[in-house]
């Protein structure tokens, strides 16, 4: 069974990616979540409603041991399966001015976005190399490309993942494994629910926030064989914000 693993797949952009991959690929969809079981179940229901198969898999991407144990257990029950697509989507924001930023907020954001990328991708790397084919898609942000005031922690984490994307792409390209980053701007989701869209859209040439499905369309393309010659790229999807 060929699978796509989407971390943080229960809600928002992650959910949209699960649904789009279910719609446009034959991959068995593994929906990772950390805390919101109900949301994960709802995502799975939508995947199944599209005629695809999927399952939910709980682990905290920031916790190295949890990732290893959960995936060990999963592979014990799915010995013939291959995870061909990894979408490193799990992330959080803990915004605030850097001068007031508690270390916990710095660490929490770095641990999920950056160390989460390491924990999940590193675990699966040998298997993917053996498979001699794969797609790794790292969800980053316009904040990681140009930096956003009030998000020094988030910008640092996403910027680091962008650099890791470029390095890893060069390491493993010859095994037909591509590694790309997708950098959304303002996308309607829980993460942007508190933002003033009316005011912020003045900064966006397309004059609106994006939809999660629009991001999912791009991820689905990068996860497909059609994107076989694209690697090490950071693809902005932000309505034209200069980045």
């Amino acid at each position, binding site marked *: 069974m060929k699978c796509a693993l989407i971390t943080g797949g229960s809600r928002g952009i992650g959910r949209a990616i699960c649904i789009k991959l279910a719609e446009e690929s034959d991959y068995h969809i593994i929906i990772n979540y950390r805390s919101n079981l109900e949301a994960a179940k709802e995502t799975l229901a939508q995947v199944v409603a599209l005629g695809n198969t999927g399952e939910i898999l709980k682990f905290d991407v920031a916790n190295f041991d949890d990732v290893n144990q959960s995936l060990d257990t999963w592979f014990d029950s799915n010995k013939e399966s291959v995870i061909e697509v990894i979408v490193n989507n799990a992330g959080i924001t803990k915004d605030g001015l850097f001068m007031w930023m508690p270390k916990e907020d710095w660490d929490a954001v770095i641990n999920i976005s950056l160390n989460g990328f390491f924990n999940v991708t590193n675990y699966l790397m*040998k298997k993917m*190399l*053996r498979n001699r084919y794969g797609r790794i898609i790292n969800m980053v942000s316009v904040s990681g490309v140009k930096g956003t005031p009030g998000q020094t922690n988030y910008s640092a984490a996403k910027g680091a993942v962008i650099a890791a994307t470029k390095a890893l792409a060069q*390491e*493993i390209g*010859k*095994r037909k494994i591509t590694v790309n980053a997708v950098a959304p701007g303002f996308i309607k989701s829980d993460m942007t629910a508190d933002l003033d869209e009316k005011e912020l859209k003045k900064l966006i040439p397309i004059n609106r926030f994006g939809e999660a499905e629009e991001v999912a369309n791009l991820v689905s393309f990068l996860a497909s064989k059609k994107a076989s010659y694209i690697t090490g790229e950071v693809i902005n999807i932000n309505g034209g914000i200069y980045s």
Partner: protein
Amino acid sequence: MNITEIISKTNDFLVDEFEAEIDELQPDANLKDTLELDSLDFVDLVVSVETEFGVKLVAEDFVGVETLQQFYNLIEAKLN
């Protein structure tokens, strides 16, 4: 498992999985050159050893391993 059995079993999977010619598999032959391994190919070697012998090799284990004999010795050391 003695060293003769290790050599035999190792050579078998090197022929089957790495397309090595049995005649090339001389104890003093260079492991990397003989098998035409690049750095990523070591993952295949590690997995094969794990599958065949049930021992896990890590990158540090290969430090100083240049010849096939040294590779056989490494597996023997790991087994014992």
